């Protein structure tokens, strides 16, 4: 068994599994294009994945689109106020219908209409109307108008995607029979739903492209052994030794204690700490101790060596105060520091020199991330 790869041997994992807490996921799972393709189904096609925030689409007909793996979906507020998700694919000839519409700039429509042949769906996804050309056969000499079979609205409705919510956070699941979101989220659901998350509004979205595998960044987010040396400005107000990394089935929480108590009005939660939730596979909720607001990250893979970091910030008023602007700048500084680290790690992984990393005792959260990946790959 070798941990290193000297370039003469095939890169092999040290152990066939990663049951030992010091074993990381073998390195090729961070660099192999085939793994990226496989993850589209085994990870992003099976688990609950964050789609967006309900507050961004408050009125019936409000919608945004989202691409997850190769799937493009529409998330829409229905007539009765629910939120539904549909594949952005017309039941007629498979055309994509709605133009890309970001959550930061949602669209509004009373109907979902395919621009190709004008098949039109209601906000619940049911086919509402087709043009006259689907009711008569005037161009077909072999068919009488009365023999034209009508288009069944239900059979030709849009293909829906499972949706569920944790407070205002909308999740989707592409599996035919997924586990419930409540099961996947566990205590995170009840904890977050005890907070007035819906009273806060999207104030800023910062999207960066990072040159590393999405799991490399996820691993970095999940531990703070690197903080003392790499986030020196941030940690000076923290009691790192009093912090705690709590591992649950599909999520883990990083609790950071502040060196001094933070005023009550500076946060939305009761604890005298900051709480950072990582929710498998690629979503985080960032409960700050020093701002009356919260943030989320979406860690969206582009390919095996790149991902998009979508950082959203929520405050009571979408118009930011100067303090809130400063807070976001500080958060961005942390991202830049982390981006430097994870891109460096990816370079090392890409070199092929290491077959499998070795995790430390305070990286049990990283191990959980890697175990979940392994379970997904083997399922």
């Amino acid at each position, binding site marked *: 068994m070798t941990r290193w790869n000297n370039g003469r041997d095939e890169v092999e994992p040290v152990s066939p599994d990663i049951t030992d807490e010091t074993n990381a996921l073998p390195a090729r799972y961070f660099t192999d294009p085939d793994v990226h393709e496989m993850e589209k189904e085994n990870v992003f096609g099976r688990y609950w994945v964050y789609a967006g925030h309900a507050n961004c689409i408050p009125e019936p007909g409000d919608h945004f689109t989202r691409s997850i793996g190769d799937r493009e979906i529409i998330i829409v507020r229905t007539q009765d106020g629910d939120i539904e998700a549909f594949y952005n694919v017309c039941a007629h000839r498979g055309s994509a219908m709605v133009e*890309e519409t970001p959550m*930061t*700039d949602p669209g509004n429509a009373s109907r979902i209409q395919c621009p190709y042949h004008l098949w039109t769906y209601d906000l619940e996804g049911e086919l509402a109307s087709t043009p006259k050309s689907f009711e008569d056969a005037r161009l077909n000499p072999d068919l009488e108008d009365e023999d034209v079979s009508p288009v069944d609205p239900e059979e030709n409705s849009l293909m829906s995607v499972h949706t569920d919510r944790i407070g205002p956070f909308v999740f989707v699941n592409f599996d035919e029979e997924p586990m419930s979101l409540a099961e996947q989220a566990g205590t995170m659901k009840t904890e977050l739903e005890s907070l007035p998350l819906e009273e806060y509004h999207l104030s800023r979205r*910062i999207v960066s*492209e990072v040159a590393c595998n999405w799991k490399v960044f996820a691993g970095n987010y999940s531990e703070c052994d690197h903080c003392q040396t790499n986030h020196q400005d941030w940690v000076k107000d923290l009691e790192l030794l009093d912090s705690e990394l709590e591992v649950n089935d599909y999520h883990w929480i990083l609790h950071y204690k502040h060196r001094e108590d933070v005023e009550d009005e500076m946060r939305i939660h009761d604890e005298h700490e900051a709480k950072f939730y990582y929710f498998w596979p690629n979503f985080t909720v960032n409960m700050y101790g020093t701002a009356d607001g919260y943030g989320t990250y979406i860690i969206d893979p*582009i390919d095996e060596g790149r991902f*998009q970091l979508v950082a959203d910030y929520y405050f009571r008023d979408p118009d930011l105060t100067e303090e809130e602007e400063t807070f976001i700048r500080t958060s961005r500084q942390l991202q830049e520091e982390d981006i430097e680290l994870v891109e460096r790690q990816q370079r090392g992984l890409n070199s092929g020199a290491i077959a499998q990393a070795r995790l430390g005792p305070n990286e049990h959260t990283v191990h959980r991330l890697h175990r979940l990946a392994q379970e997904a790959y083997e399922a």
Partner: protein
Amino acid sequence: MTHHQQSAFTVACQECSVDMEPDSANEVVDFYRRHRRQTGHDVVLTRADLEFEPPTADDLVTVIADLENRYENGVPIGIVAATMSERGFSVGETLDEIYEVRMTGALYEPRDDHLAAF
């Protein structure tokens, strides 16, 4: 993104205050598309080392026709964006203009994301 060697291109979203150094001109356009999908923001080229003097023509079709002499089987759409950025166009504005002109039939794509003029 952090790179040790300076890339020929740098593209930035001013609203997000983020930038990246793509490996090729067409990666500029890929970045724009991904970024716009998430944010609705336009992006601008803040550096474009084209290694040649860009055409001086004003209209897009003539610019592309000029550039075609340098490329086989179409001009990379990112090179067109880089050329137009010299005239103050954002990537989104150039792509919108390309779409408008393509719809007139004066441009076509001999292969994906490469342009040629009739």
